[in-house]
């Protein structure tokens, strides 16, 4: 398991290639990438805060949970914090499994849990001011399917 929380941008292609290259006997690698959306049309920046110390532990726990539920050989969670611009990459997950169903489901599980169980908070900064992004009920509801 590879858990990283960092401010710096990352190279999606390089990370995906490195992740796939270090697997052995895995028939499937699934990756997901989250990107900053300019919902209002006037976004200057998206500021992401987290809870250092707890964040890494929470992500590791979510990854362990995924590994206990599906036959996955490896997982990567990489999440950025700090000030990001629209269309910048916020985060990625990757899962590797012998079969694609496990890789897809584990990746979806990681995303669903990460959205409302890992201590990250997003703030939108626009010309009109700034505001914290509200948690969505759908994100909380998404957990009930697992």
């Amino acid at each position: 398991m590879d858990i990283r929380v960092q401010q710096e941008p990352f190279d999606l292609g390089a990370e995906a290639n490195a992740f796939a290259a270090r697997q052995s006997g895995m028939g499937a690698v699934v990756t997901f990438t989250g990107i900053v959306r300019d919902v209002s049309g006037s976004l200057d920046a998206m500021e992401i805060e987290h809870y250092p110390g707890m964040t890494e532990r929470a992500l590791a726990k979510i990854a362990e949970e995924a590994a206990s539920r599906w036959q996955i050989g490896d997982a990567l969670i990489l999440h950025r914090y700090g000030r990001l611009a629209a269309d910048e990459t916020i985060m990625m997950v990757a899962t590797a499994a012998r079969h694609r169903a496990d890789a897809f489901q584990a990746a979806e599980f990681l995303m669903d849990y990460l959205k409302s169980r890992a201590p990250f908070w997003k703030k939108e900064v626009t010309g009109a001011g700034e505001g914290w992004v509200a948690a969505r009920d759908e994100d909380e509801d998404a957990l009930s399917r697992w």
Partner: protein
Amino acid sequence: MRDLVEELRAREERYAAAFADLSALRVAVDQELADFDAPLVGVREVAFFPPMTGG
């Protein structure tokens, strides 16, 4: 945990406002998500925060 929340509520107006609706808050005990019924014996760190919006 309930006692801690009550003590904070009584201490300052802004705490009372922050803890007005516990369903809108999350709590972590020693950097692990917990609930408002969690015991605090031996606990070193308690954090209150709004619902998380990662991903």
